[in-house]
């Protein structure tokens, strides 16, 4: 199997005035097609920073990042944006939906900057696949946290991405909603072969994936397969 994500000796240093804050200190990591991997680590260990770089939202200070075999770290804004649009589905802890727009319009937003064909139908279909087809008219504030996160997943899915990245997708959710989210991600990985990488600090959530990468102080300190991944029982109607 070919590597979708290949990160080698990745470093990221923030500069706060005269002080350098090293956040990633040489991370190397490879994720292959169809994998479902979680990244764990204490707060401030650089998980989000790593995810943002993998998601083409941020650039590393040094090191190499190959996405589907192509070196990303020297791309300019337009190419990074196009890649975010077509290859990567990113889910945030805080959903990041536009409050003025309906669920459907929020999903459609992802198609505004790329392939717009059948935007409405595809967006509706993506909402249906997360069990929210009937709530398409509702605005984010009229939906529960779990439902909002499902809209965000639909928005990440609608572009047909190669990888799904999720930064603490269940961090703000109760157990039941978390289970629903994990069930959706597991199904996408199992049935559609989508590569999924998620950040979590909950061991429970991590055990739903098939591999756990541990991060500490900007370094990979552990990389273990999960012997018997849990199956999320969140019964989202499909």
């Amino acid at each position, binding site marked *: 199997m070919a590597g979708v994500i290949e990160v080698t000796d990745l470093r990221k240093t923030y500069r706060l005035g005269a002080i350098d804050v090293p956040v990633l200190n040489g991370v190397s990591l490879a994720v292959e097609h169809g994998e479902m991997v979680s990244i764990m680590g204490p707060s401030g260990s650089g998980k989000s920073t790593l995810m943002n770089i993998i998601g083409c939202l941020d650039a590393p200070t040094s090191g190499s990042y190959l996405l589907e075999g192509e070196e990303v770290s020297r791309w300019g*804004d*337009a190419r990074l*944006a*196009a890649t*975010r649009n077509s290859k990567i589905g*990113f889910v945030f802890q805080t959903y990041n939906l536009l409050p003025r727009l309906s669920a459907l319009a929020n999903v459609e937003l992802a198609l*505004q*900057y790329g392939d717009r064909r059948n935007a409405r139908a595809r967006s509706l279909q993506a909402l249906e696949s997360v069990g929210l087809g009937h709530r398409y008219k509702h605005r984010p504030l009229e939906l529960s946290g779990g439902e909002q996160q499902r809209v965000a997943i639909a928005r990440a899915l609608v*572009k047909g991405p190669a990888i799904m990245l999720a930064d603490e997708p269940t961090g703000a959710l109760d157990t039941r909603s978390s289970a629903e989210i994990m069930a959706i991600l597991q199904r996408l990985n199992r049935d559609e072969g989508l590569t999924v990488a998620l950040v979590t600090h909950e061991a429970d959530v991590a055990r739903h994936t098939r591999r756990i990468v541990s991060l500490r102080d900007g370094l990979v300190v552990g990389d273990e397969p999960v012997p018997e991944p849990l199956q999320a029982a969140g019964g989202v109607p499909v």
Partner: protein
Amino acid sequence: MTPFALIGTAWSSIGGNRLRTGLTLLGIIIGVAAVIALMSIGRGAQEDITNRIESLGSNLLYVRPLDGDLTLDDALALVDPVFAPSIVSVAPEVSTGGSVTYRITDAFAQIAGVTPEFAEVRNFEVASGEFISPAHVQNRKNVAVLGSQTAEDLFGERDPVGVDIAISGLRFAVIGVLESKGATAFGNEDSRVLVPLTTAFYRLSGERTSEGDITVSLINVQADGERIDEAQQEAETVLRLRHEITDADDFTVDTQQSVIDALSEATGTLTVFLGAVAGISLVVGGIGIMNIMLVSVTERTREIGIRKALGAKRRDILAQFVTEAVLLSIGGGLLGVGVGVVASRVLDGFSLAGSQLITVFSGDIAALALVVSAAIGLFFGIYPAARAAQLHPIEALRHE
């Protein structure tokens, strides 16, 4: 994004804050309306002056002395079928100072000695009574024709024909009143008192050249139909011969058109000036747009982050905010055109300091105002939009 999607997005975010949008629009509306109203006034003045001058007769030439003298003989020499076939007739004028009084009422008026040709050449009709006749000129009669304003100043509503007035202490009989013409290039044509040329010369003024010739202050020349340029050349040739000119002319021959052109240029400058003054308020409106766009960019930093995370390029964000600014300015521009048109209608015929305001609205003023307001939206929208476009996606997403 497609232009359609851009406008849709811009529209929904503009509609998201009605009060603020309304206040921002107001700045542009006032600016555009002011440009249109003031330029209409300028145009009105331009058209008014042109009309008044044209009402004096369109085939007129004016001969005036520069640093020499023009004599009565010069005027008579211009009527010459051989040397000046394009000149139909001439009307020399002698203007003099002096007071005009009826009983104890004084009138401010220009006194001019003229010949009977004056009425035809300058396109004047008498409103009542009669004009100066050849016999009046020949016999140096003390008769006067009053301009309509002078008649009103002296007599009010009464008909002055047949009444005696005093000009510089001499008794004159009023024989007619001229129709009203209004102000022209030569002052107010209605505040005049016309007397026979000979009377003016022998009784009121009496200026002669060193050779003893009668001097005139102006020669009105009527050209034959459209042959104005020919008439001008002929007049110049005749006068140069008579004045034995070798280098610079000591007189000038102006056509009616050149007078109109000169005045149009002056009033055109006035129009542009008025427009520019009003344009300043448009610029202030543009700064209002910039202000609101900067606030909007700050408020919507998170939205910008979300859009970037979903694949919006810098130029997509730039286009989105520029579209919003231009939509605001064009919207304000269109409303401003409406308000401006209404304002210029209302101002038309409005009397201001005794004279009537005339406004002329035309489509090109509206088009100009719209284009300028769109350009202002573009100009003042670019900076906020560029700030939005330059935002880093992660930092924008972290913004509260």
